[in-house]
Each structure stands twice: as C-alpha cells, then as structure tokens.
C-alpha cells in the first residue's frame, strides 16, 4: 500500500516538475495547443539565426506609434486618406495576410491615437480584435475597455497605453508560442505602414526631418530582410522578401555617416537630460527619395490588396 502511494506520489511529482520546467521555457503558452491556429506558412525552415536573436531584433523595432508621433510633433496635419481602409478586412483569409494586416492596422491605430481621432478608433479596434482572435492572440486585446475609452473620448493616455501595450503583448505571445514567423509579419506590417505614412507626408509637402528619418530606415530594412530570409522557403515570405529587396535597391545610394561625440548630462527644469553629441549625417538625394516613396507605396498597396 505504502509502496503504491509512494509510486503515485513520485509520478505526480514528476508531472508537476515537468509542467514547471516547461512553463519556465515557454511562459507565453503551449505551441502544441490544439487551439493554436495551424499556420498556412511553412514553419519548417532551416533557421540559421537563433530564435532568441530573432526575437530580440523583432522586439527592438516594432513600435506602432513612433513614426506617427514624429509626424504629429513636426506639426503635420492629420490625413485620413493615408489610412488603410477597414472594409476589406474579411478578405484577409490566411494567417500570412492576417499577420501583415494586424501590423498595418496597429500602426494606423497608433496614428489615430496620436492625433486623438477617437471617433475612427472604434472601427479599427473592431477589425484588429477580429484578426487578433483569428490568430489566437485576441485575449491580449481588451476590446471593451478600448471601445469605452474611445467612445467616451476619455483618458486618452490610457487609450494610448492600452493600444500599444496590447500590441506588444500580442506580438510577444506570438514569439513565445513559437510563431516568430507570424511575429515577423506583424512587425513588417507595422514598419511598412510607418514608412508609408512618412513617405506620403513628404510626397505632399517636403520635410527635411521626415526625409532624414526615411533615409535612416535603410538599416532597419536591412535587419528586416535578414530575418525574412530565415523564413523564405515559404513562398509567401519569398515574395515579400523580393518586394523588400526591391525597396533595398531603392535605398542603395543612401549614405549614413556617424561621427562620435562625448555625451553630456544637464539638468533642465529639475530633469536630467543626456545629450548624445554624436553626429549622424544622412545623405539622400531627391531622386532616391522619390524612388523610395514610389516603391514603398507600391509594396504597401499590394499587401493591403492581397
């Protein structure tokens, strides 16, 4: 009797231990979960960069707000025509299309939030929620609270926080559940829509600061194509990579020169401010800029029409 009890206890213990260990390695969820949607994209790729390295890179530049914040900070007025229409969201019928769309629409939501266009926010969060549910990351998108904040036009800081942190949690969950391939697509969508917004602003009215920011995206684009190559055995990824390589060609002549300086710390209005003092010179010609604007527009419009 005692032997049997001890044996059962041992089995329970081992099960608990294995659950604990598996949770440590994968805090975001179980990749074998039957509820996790089967990807239409090939995950059986020969990964030459470690997953941790990929995740670090992806996580470092996925921000759905910053380009819009810069555009707003420079006093550029809001323009609804830059946004991706939400009417054809039902046509995003594969995980590939859904992931790209999640990124693009999240960047548009960031643009709307930065300009406090709360009346249009509800439309975007409705579509984002639907896509996020399809990708099994909808649990991180608090639709009801976001809708209440947007509808009542109240506490806009909370609306911004919740929108951005929901995006990061969804993206992180994809990576933690071994769906880095989809996360790469989300991040590509965010980045491309940010670039699209910037290029459309400059197309309408030249702006040196934004042109410079567009030129600096050369390095990000290089990282992005490097990651997409890892998954390029899949035809969808290969096509996307080909498009972004065309954009890389448009960026070829853009030169970025860095001169190092020594950072200085100052106290301003009781706040500690560090001035970097490095000098970065972005050399981008008008012809190169036009080429980048046109190529970005072509790729982005192709992706939202998939």
């Amino acid at each position, binding site marked *: 009797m*005692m032997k049997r*009890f*001890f044996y059962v*206890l041992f089995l329970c*213990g081992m099960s*608990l*231990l294995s659950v*604990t260990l598996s*949770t*440590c390695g994968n805090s975001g969820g179980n990749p074998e979960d039957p509820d996790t949607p089967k990807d239409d994209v090939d995950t059986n790729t020969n990964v030459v960069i470690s997953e941790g390295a990929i995740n*670090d*890179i992806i*996580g*470092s*530049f996925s*921000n759905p*707000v*910053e380009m819009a*914040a*810069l555009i707003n*900070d*420079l006093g550029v007025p809001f323009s609804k025509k830059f946004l991706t229409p939400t009417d054809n969201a039902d046509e995003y019928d594969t995980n590939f299309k859904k992931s790209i769309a999640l990124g693009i629409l999240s960047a548009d939501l960031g643009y709307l939030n*930065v300009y406090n266009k709360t009346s249009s926010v509800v439309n975007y969060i409705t579509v984002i929620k639907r896509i996020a549910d399809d990708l099994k990351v909808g649990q991180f998108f608090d639709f009801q609270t976001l809708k209440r904040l947007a509808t009542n036009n109240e506490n806009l*800081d*909370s609306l*911004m*926080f919740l929108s*951005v*942190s929901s995006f*990061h949690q969804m993206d992180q969950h994809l990576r933690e559940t071994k769906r880095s391939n989809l996360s790469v697509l989300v991040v590509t969508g965010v980045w491309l829509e940010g670039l699209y917004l910037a290029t459309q602003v400059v197309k309408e009215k030249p702006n040196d*600061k934004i042109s*410079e*920011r567009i030129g*600096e995206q050369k*390095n*990000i684009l290089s990282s992005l194509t490097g990651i997409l190559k890892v998954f390029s055995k899949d035809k969808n990824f290969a096509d996307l990579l080909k498009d972004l390589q065309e954009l890389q060609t448009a960026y070829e002549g853009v030169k*970025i020169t*860095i001169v*190092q*300086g*020594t*950072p*200085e*710390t100052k106290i301003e*209005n*009781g*706040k*500690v*401010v*560090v*001035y*970097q*003092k*490095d*000098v*970065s010179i*972005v050399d981008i010609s008008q012809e190169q800029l036009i080429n980048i604007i046109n190529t970005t527009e072509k790729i982005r419009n192709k992706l939202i029409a998939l």
Partner: protein
Amino acid sequence: MNRIIITLLVGFLVLINSEESFSQCKQQLVYSCATQPKTAGENPIYLRDFNAKLRKPKGDDEDVARFQVVLNKGTRYRFNLCNPEESEGKTVLTLFDATRPDNEKPIGKGGPYGRTCGDDGKDYPNASFDFQCERSGVYYVSIKFKKGQGDKKSCAVGILSFIGKGK
C-alpha cells in the same frame, strides 16, 4: 517513510511556489508607471515597457535583464523606472550600446549613455532621465539591482516614452 513523503511534498511545493513568485511586474504597475502625471507643456507618449524579473544576486553574480531597443536621431526619449514597494529605490535602469558599455564609470567618462540614478546611487527625480538621441540605431537597456541592494528577488519596470524632437 512518512517523513520522506512529507519532505518530498514540501520540496515540490517550495519549487513550484518559488518559480511562480519569480515573475515580471504586474500590469497595474506597468500602467501606473506609464501614465504618471505630466509636467506642464509636455505630452509624453508611451512607446514600450521593459518588464524585468530580477533574482536575488549571489555574491558578485548580479542578475541583469537586458532589452534591445531602436532609437531615432533627433528625438528626445524619456526612460523611467518603477518598482513594487518592497524594492523601491533599489534598482537602476541603464541605457548603453557597444561604444558606451554598461559599466560603473560616470556618464561621458567611459560610462553608458544614461542611468536612472546618479553616480552616488541616488535616484534622479521619478527615477528618470531624458535622452536626446542624435544617432539612429540599436541601443540596449539593462535593469538590475544597485550594488548591494538586492536582498531578495523582485521585479522592476522601465518605461520608454516619446517626448518630441527636442530643443
């Protein structure tokens, strides 16, 4: 035999409990840290958070949480750090890269770009500093206990906000 069984059970419970309680900060702390009262004339925009779980340091072996972040030229960013009550003032957030590494040296004298506390270890107001970025690229953020302050495991959350193009 009973003693062995009880010891085994207690052992498993301790193991499970310690793994569960060693975790990131709760979303409530992230929220309050990201939506702190604003200074007049400023409108910081939350960009992302760095939620760090920190083990109790063993001797000189300190636990450091590191994150990559891309920052852009011509933009002023704000970094601020928040802790749960039990570890308030005990952690530090550092901004660095390969050219300005995460070390003990002062800012501008071979040290990193910025820290949320001064060289004397005292936190800056709101455990925060602004960084006027002049070179777009990949930077790193580390969060760790200040020297000799990590008496037990805890968590800390850093917030990155967009301040504007700077002056």
